């Protein structure tokens, strides 16, 4: 029987990235995937006629350009196109536009508040300062602050260096930023509800935090720190849907000699003499490998696919307590035409961007209260986008695909598990929210796919339906992600590694966890590193 150098469990984007870098280093690599399609949560699915849905992740900004280049993803067909701005609709019929051009953005903010328009200039500088600190760290392995090993000390020093270079003000502001709520942070700059509401959205997407929960300022950073072609904070589409990312990664992997086997559901990770040595599939097949890499979330990896006796009890406890409660839902909608949003000026380019319908932080916070009470938000925060305005490949000409990300949606209801009826009612809530601002929207609907955390867990295997494979709170970031002491992609079992979004630097179709894990694996195997370094910000 063939023994692979490495088996990667799960053909999500991190698994594929990890496998591609391992294969590029000359390893024989097999990726096993339970579904009959690859991509995990970065997929393009055709579920209705000729419409293509990015039915899980839907926009792209964090995918590291270093990896894009190192794996030659452009040659493998990946094309990322930025989209234009966006708008937040207000209950009074007005809107707040978000324009990429700073001058235009200032004028639009000034329409709501001169003070806030000027404050935005300082806000931009301060958040950018924080972005620059974290961006350098995305393609690095987090140091273990409790270890005095030279390697860790060096890595700690590297982590500390940019902070030490900061002037006094920035140093203290960084300390505060990382521990603050996005609500308190925005209150320090702005006085206008809609401006704060619009900016706060990035602080809660995908997260079971409200805008006034401490730590949510970091979540904002997580959504700001990406870039499209150097435009930091910009977001874009993968042409053809998010599946294009996975397809390009798969193509790169194959070009380096790697294999992918779909409909290969891993039942367990095989451990002999304390070392991982392969996987057993649910159909009974056993596959051997020198190294096993799991792109599954940590609960699935360690609690479902392993014998607990192979793991330290304390580790199992920590894994059990890793927070993976889902908080997001999604609607994918096929439209017969382009809906109108009468609040926007006719011909406004803002409709190409991300549209929001919550115009204050109090409404966002109340939406979060619903989640805490185990129900979906009755006044939900939506991140609505119509990709077909930018990417013509996703619907027939003249027709449109609308992606609606919904915050908040609980993993389980106060009445118990999700039911199909409840899911329909959830979808209704979302559609009504949109229809309040777009009278012709409902009449254009041809098909709706409604996804709650239940569907995310069932189809993609994300425990709790958490889109980041685990909450992005400070206690689960950096050296705490996923488990303190195991943040360097190695598990307690020799030859078993983690490469999913549950590891540093977390979720968001970044591919950095997969790449970082590959670098650690290659180092353990004493193979030349194929993973690139940060480009670095000047």
């Amino acid at each position, binding site marked *: 029987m063939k023994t692979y150098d490495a088996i990667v469990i799960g053909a999500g984007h991190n698994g594929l990235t990890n496998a591609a870098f391992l294969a590029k280093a000359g390893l024989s690599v097999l990726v096993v995937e339970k579904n009959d399609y690859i991509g995990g949560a970065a997929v393009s699915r055709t579920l209705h006629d000729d419409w293509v849905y990015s039915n899980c992740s839907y926009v792209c900004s964090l995918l590291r350009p270093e990896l894009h280049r190192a794996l030659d993803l452009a040659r493998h067909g990946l094309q990322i196109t930025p989209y234009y701005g966006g708008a937040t609709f207000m209950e009074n019929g007005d809107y707040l536009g978000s324009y990429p051009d700073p001058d235009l953005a200032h004028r639009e903010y000034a329409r709501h508040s001169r003070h806030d328009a000027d404050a935005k200039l300082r806000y931009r500088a301060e958040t950018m300062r924080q972005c620059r600190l974290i961006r350098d760290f995305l393609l690095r392995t987090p140091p273990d*602050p*409790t*270890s005095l090993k030279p390697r860790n000390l060096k890595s700690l020093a590297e982590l500390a260096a940019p902070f030490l270079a900061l*002037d*006094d*003000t920035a*140093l*203290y*502001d960084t*300390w*505060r930023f990382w*521990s*603050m709520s996005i609500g*308190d942070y925005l*209150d*320090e700059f702005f006085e206008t509800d809609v401006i704060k509401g619009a900016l706060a959205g990035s602080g809660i997407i995908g997260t079971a*935090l409200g805008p*006034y*929960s*401490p*730590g949510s300022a970091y979540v904002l950073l997580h959504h700001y720190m990406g870039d499209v072609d150097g435009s930091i904070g910009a977001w874009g589409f993968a042409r053809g849907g998010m599946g294009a990312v996975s397809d390009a990664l798969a193509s790169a992997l194959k070009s380096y000699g790697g294999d992918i086997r779909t409909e290969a559901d891993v039942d367990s990770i095989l451990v002999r003499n304390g070392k991982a040595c392969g996987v057993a599939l649910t159909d009974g097949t056993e596959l051997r490998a020198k190294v096993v890499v799991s792109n599954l979330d940590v609960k699935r990896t360690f609690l479902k696919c392993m014998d607990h006796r192979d793991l330290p009890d*304390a580790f199992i*406890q920590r894994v*059990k*307590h890793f*927070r993976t409660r889902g908080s997001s839902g999604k609607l994918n909608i096929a439209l017969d035409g382009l809906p109108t949003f009468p609040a926007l000026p006719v011909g406004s380019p803002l409709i190409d961007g991300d549209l929001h319908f919550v115009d204050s932080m*109090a409404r966002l*916070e*109340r939406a979060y*209260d619903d989640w*805490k*009470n185990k129900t979906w938000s009755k006044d939900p925060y939506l991140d609505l986008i119509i990709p077909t305005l930018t990417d013509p490949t996703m619907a027939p000409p003249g027709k449109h695909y609308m992606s609606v990300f919904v915050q908040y949606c609980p993993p389980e209801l106060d009445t118990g598990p999700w039911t199909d009826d409840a899911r329909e009612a959830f979808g209704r809530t979302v559609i009504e929210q949109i229809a309040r601002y777009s009278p012709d929207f409902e009449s254009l609907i041809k098909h709706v796919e409604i996804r709650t955390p239940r569907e995310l867990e069932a189809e993609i295997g994300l425990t709790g339906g958490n889109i980041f494979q685990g909450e992005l*709170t*400070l*206690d689960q970031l950096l*050296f*705490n992600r996923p488990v*303190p*002491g195991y943040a360097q992609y190695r598990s307690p079992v020799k030859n078993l590694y983690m490469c999913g979004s549950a590891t540093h630097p977390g979720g968001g179709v970044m591919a950095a966890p997969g790449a970082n894990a590959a670098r650690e694996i290659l180092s353990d195997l004493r193979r030349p590193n194929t993973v690139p370094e940060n480009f670095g910000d000047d």
Partner: protein
Amino acid sequence: MTERLDVIVIGAGHNGLVCAERLARAGRKVVVLERREQVGGMTETIEFAPGYRASACAQFLYDLPMSTVDELGLVSHGLTMDPRPLDTVALAPDTEPRVFSSNRTSTLPGMDASAWPAFRKHMLDLAGFIEHIKQRPPPKLHQRDRADLLGLAGMGLALRRLGTDDMREFLRLITSNVYDLLCEHFEDPVVRGAIGFDAVLGTHLGPRSPGSVLTLLHRWSRGGGPVQPIGGLGAVSSALAASARAAGVHVRTESGVRNINVHAGRAIGVTLNDGSTLEAQDIVSNVDPRRTLLDLVGARHIDIGLARRFHRIRAKGTAARMLLALDGLPEAPSGNDRLLRQRLVVAGDLDELERAYNPVKYGEFSPKPALEISVPTLSDPALAPAGHHVVSITAQYAPLRPEGGWTTSRRDAFADAIRNTLDAALPGVARHIVAEDLLVPDDLESRYGITGGHWHHGELALDQFLFTRPVAFGAQYRQALAGLTLCSAGAHPGGHVSGHAGRHAAAAILRRGTES
């Protein structure tokens, strides 16, 4: 008339008195100026109804180090208390009380019985690091001079002393939320709720809010056991004032300060409400940092950015006080009279506690507030007429200023909510009530002059902790303005009746004295 002094301390709260005593002991000529008729500030005992007295705000001591009690000779100055901490008894309708004890057998159901001592020990181990931090002034992150580097290195060593596992756990938990922590360790919802309440008491946090483990560790850094002095917390202030006077401090009441006077960029004295002025080498303020800098000093004497930082200190109080005069005792929980003498907690489970928190975010009060209750007359009968009793309650959550203000009808509605919650947990208490007094955060603000009516003079949270408490570039007690020292709970290490801030502030002044 201008009188020359070494030190003027504004405000005779406990930190002001501790600071004054320490400085006077070191030979400084010190006057303490108190706006009100009596000393103590929020650490006072009031007669809330004729013949009935109780602690006005804080009702327990958690954090007063015995070393301070000894050094200041508080016992000889009249402080009487049983230093053995009270138990905490979690009450819930229609179920047995849960007793949390540090030195006796706890009566927690099922697995939680053994989980509690282990959990408590684990938390106290971690809290030891917080105690290390509290015992010391915060180092500066910038301008790395020797003292700051030593302070930072000391913190690093103290952290390492926890050992690898605890250090990892500390670094994880310090930003984490108490809701998940308690769900990890306990099964019983009432047990979880009661411990969760310890984390959020006196804060603008719910149990799910990240940062609520920090506030738990802060409360528990000296063991977490509550102590109630005879005569209420006012007895602590009286003893502190007596100790200060014995050290030579001149404590002047009814001497409200209108302004801190600044000349050539330095605080040089104060103007009192009666227009008289006093000058001194050092001006120490026990008034909360925001009022000190923005109202007493005036923003114009400091830089714009710094003034903005003080302006933005988050200080929205959420804790209300309700004092009840009773003509008899309520039924003891489970008929056990001993339990009634303990610290009683009615918090429901963590979800109920979180739901109690939700309204305050929108400026509304909790329809079902969480309560911390004591019956101080059981150990201190002198607080009420013979046979009568006092019930002292801290209730959360109450907004600082609801929309439309604290109208009579809103106060009544909130008082009803407190009484209903209380009566469900201690059946029969309501029919004994002969008088009551409700103090909402707005009252605390106006009565004690504390921004937001916030116990800690500013929210206790990671972004307002250590290096950045009360603000960045103002954390070392003497940093905001030459000649001015901040000694209130708004400075590091924050509130509880501990005297830490007063001690550190005094030490900062004395250190300067030896350096120059």
